[in-house]
């Protein structure tokens, strides 16, 4: 046994290694990125297990399925919205007879620190009828991940570990245990449990439903679901995941400690909850994310018990929890901080770095489109989304990975010209290739501008899945006309000629693609530092 200081993400990663992980896959996404980053470093230092960035969350999930089919333990990591991309393999894999343990580590982002929504992954786990662990501490993140592999093999289902930003990105101490060896290769014995033809799928779905009582018995007995009676006859508190910490933070200020039930493993223990609320007059539900337990409770709890939470207004319906919101929900006065009368501070939103190549591209776009009144500029997920803010105000949409390309096609079909789609190199390879095929198929009058900064910049500079020099070949291979495919250097000294090319292609009444290349200044800086350090 030894102690380590880890991010919540890293505790999950190390838990997987110590559970006998053979291979892990991911696409970067805040706040989940550091799971695979840790495993990549671990592989570099120890030679394994295999840790690989993938084109997107769906391809990552499918690679993990292959590992499981071969009998070995595997993990796939993503942010909450990444699970939307991987939803197809995820939902279907619940019907497979999972062979090597398959753990799906998903980091939700309540409060949307770095995301476009705050969807709650517990719904997805429930939707798929699989087990979900929700750690409240770094130690639990480590332990639950280890256990998730065991129960994945025991119940032959994928198992979800749900993190939230404040655990993923907080550091704490983890006591680690001895590692379990990897599974030997042992291919799935009955391939009919992996061929989801309708006849097989019906059998597998029935089998998954038949396993539910056992699954519920397992989580009902889990030490992560706890009840502290506290002999309270009035208020009871149900917490899930991190909300327990905020409850504990305020506990000593309460005149009498309420009865407390905590949920860390789902399906949540319905019988225990029924018993728990018996005799209470009010039950306050504190959970990070959507009112998942609170809603379910309305079907479990007798009407005489008042259910308080996000839906009833005791806790805000949206946004992330914190100790002060929980304090108010518990009826305690929120402490005032220091205030200076008349103080007015300017906001400081994030912005593109000084010298960022995207800035040059946005300037070209603005100067070309200035002469049009009907232009539409769609965009996507990445640093360049900051082109929505001053001084550029250059883009008009940001929805989901790759949407800029398909939306540009739709806007063009709807009669607008010119239409420009702006997407980064990694986002393009993640989900922009297939919509570009649609545009190629009908030679849609639109211009796709791929901002190639040779890295996944927003999440901290992970490698793009293909080298920058391969990008042109990928686009050409899709069938984009060579006359209307350009590779430019996104540099201020080339501004005039780049703008002219963009102007020409914007006026072209067909599909054109411009790849504007210059490495992210952050990765350039880091590369230089690494070289200096290596030579020192």
């Amino acid at each position, binding site marked *: 046994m030894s102690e380590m200081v880890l991010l919540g993400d890293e505790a999950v990663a190390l838990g997987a290694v110590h559970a006998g992980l053979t291979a892990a896959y991911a696409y970067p996404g805040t706040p989940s990125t550091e799971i695979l980053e840790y495993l990549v470093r671990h592989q570099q230092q120890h030679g394994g297990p295999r840790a690989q960035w993938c084109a997107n969350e769906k391809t990552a999930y499918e690679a993990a399925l292959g590992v499981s089919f071969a009998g070995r333990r595997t993990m796939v990591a993503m942010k909450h919205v990444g699970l939307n991309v991987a939803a197809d393999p995820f939902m279907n894999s619940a019907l497979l007879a999972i062979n090597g343990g398959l753990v799906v580590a998903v980091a939700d982002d309540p409060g949307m620190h770095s995301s476009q929504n705050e969807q709650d992954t517990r719904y997805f786990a429930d939707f798929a009828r699989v087990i979900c662990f929700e750690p409240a501490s770094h130690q639990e993140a480590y332990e639950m991940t280890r256990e998730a592999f065991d129960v994945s093999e025991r119940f032959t289902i994928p198992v979800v570990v749900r993190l939230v930003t404040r655990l993923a990105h907080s550091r704490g101490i983890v006591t680690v245990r001895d590692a379990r060896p990897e599974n030997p290769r042992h291919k799935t014995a009955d391939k009919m449990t992996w061929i989801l033809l309708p006849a097989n799928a019906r059998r597998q779905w029935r089998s998954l439903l038949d396993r539910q009582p056992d699954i519920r018995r397992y989580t009902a007995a889990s030490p992560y679901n706890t009840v502290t009676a506290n002999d309270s006859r009035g208020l009871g508190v149900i917490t899930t995941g991190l909300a327990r910490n905020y409850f504990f933070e305020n506990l000593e200020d309460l005149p009498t400690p309420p009865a407390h039930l905590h949920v860390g493993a789902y399906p949540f223990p319905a019988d225990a909850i029924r018993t728990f609320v018996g005799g209470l007059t009010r039950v306050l539900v504190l959970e990070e994310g959507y009112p998942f337990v609170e809603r379910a409770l309305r079907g479990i709890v007798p009407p005489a018990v008042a259910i308080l939470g996000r839906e009833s207004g005791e806790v805000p319906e949206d946004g992330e929890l914190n*100790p002060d919101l929980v304090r108010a929900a518990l009826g305690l006065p929120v402490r005032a901080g220091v205030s*200076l009368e008349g*103080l007015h501070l300017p906001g400081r939103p994030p912005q593109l770095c000084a010298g960022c190549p995207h800035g040059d591209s946005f300037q070209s776009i603005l100067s070309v489109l200035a002469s049009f009144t009907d232009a539409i500029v769609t965009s996507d997920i990445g640093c360049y989304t900051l082109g929505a803010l001053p001084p550029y105000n250059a883009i008009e949409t940001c929805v989901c990975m790759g949407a800029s390309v398909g939306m540009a096609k739709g806007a063009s079909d709807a009669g607008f010209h010119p239409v420009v789609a702006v997407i980064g190199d990694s986002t393009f390879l993640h989900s922009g290739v297939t919509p570009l095929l649609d545009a190629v198929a009908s030679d849609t009058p639109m211009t796709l501008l791929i901002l190639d900064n040779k890295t996944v910049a927003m999440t901290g500079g992970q490698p793009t899945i293909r080298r920058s020099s391969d990008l042109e070949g990928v686009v050409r291979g899709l069938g984009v006309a060579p006359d209307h495919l350009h590779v430019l250097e996104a540099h201020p000294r080339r501004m005039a000629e780049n703008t002219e090319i963009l102007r020409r292609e914007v006026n072209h009444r067909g599909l054109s693609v411009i790849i504007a290349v210059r490495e992210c200044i952050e990765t350039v800086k880091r590369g230089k530092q690494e070289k200096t350090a290596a030579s020192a």
Partner: protein
Amino acid sequence: MKCDIILSGVGGQGVLSVSAIIASSAMQEGLAVKQSEVHGMSQRGGAVLANLRISDKPIASDLIPRGTAALILSMEPVESLRYLEYLAADGTVITATNPVTNIDDYPPIESILDQVRRLPHAIMIDAEKLARQAGSARATNMVMVGAAAHLLPVPFATIEHFVRTLFAPKGERVVDINVKALHAGRSAAAAS
């Protein structure tokens, strides 16, 4: 004993390094630590906030409740005033006086420093100047660690040890600059 610290600044100013050094030092001293960081979009030149909690008892929440922080340690003067609601009535604000003016509506710096002076316990440090004197403006954040050292529940020598550890991979010269910056910050806070 508990010591809750709000760390603030602008993305790229090294707020996370400050947090890492203080947290490592506290753990070395056998204290419980929780350290909540900001990753992702806000690191791109935006306002950055980190929560660092140190205690001799187990810590429940990763986030600091309002009105309880002993210290706001800021790399930038406007940012030193952004999170006052978290500061305890007897808490201290320690801030670098050097503005990061990457926004159009940045107020006149004197008006901001005047606001800081209105606080009951405030220490202002010309951190950039001290860092340059130590050898590099990039050591500004270590000046600020030094300036806060007298309020941290850890011995100065432990902090210095972790400054050396953090910068060791970057070579002896960088270590020297940052240790010098740390000491300069401590002296400046003592003199203020």
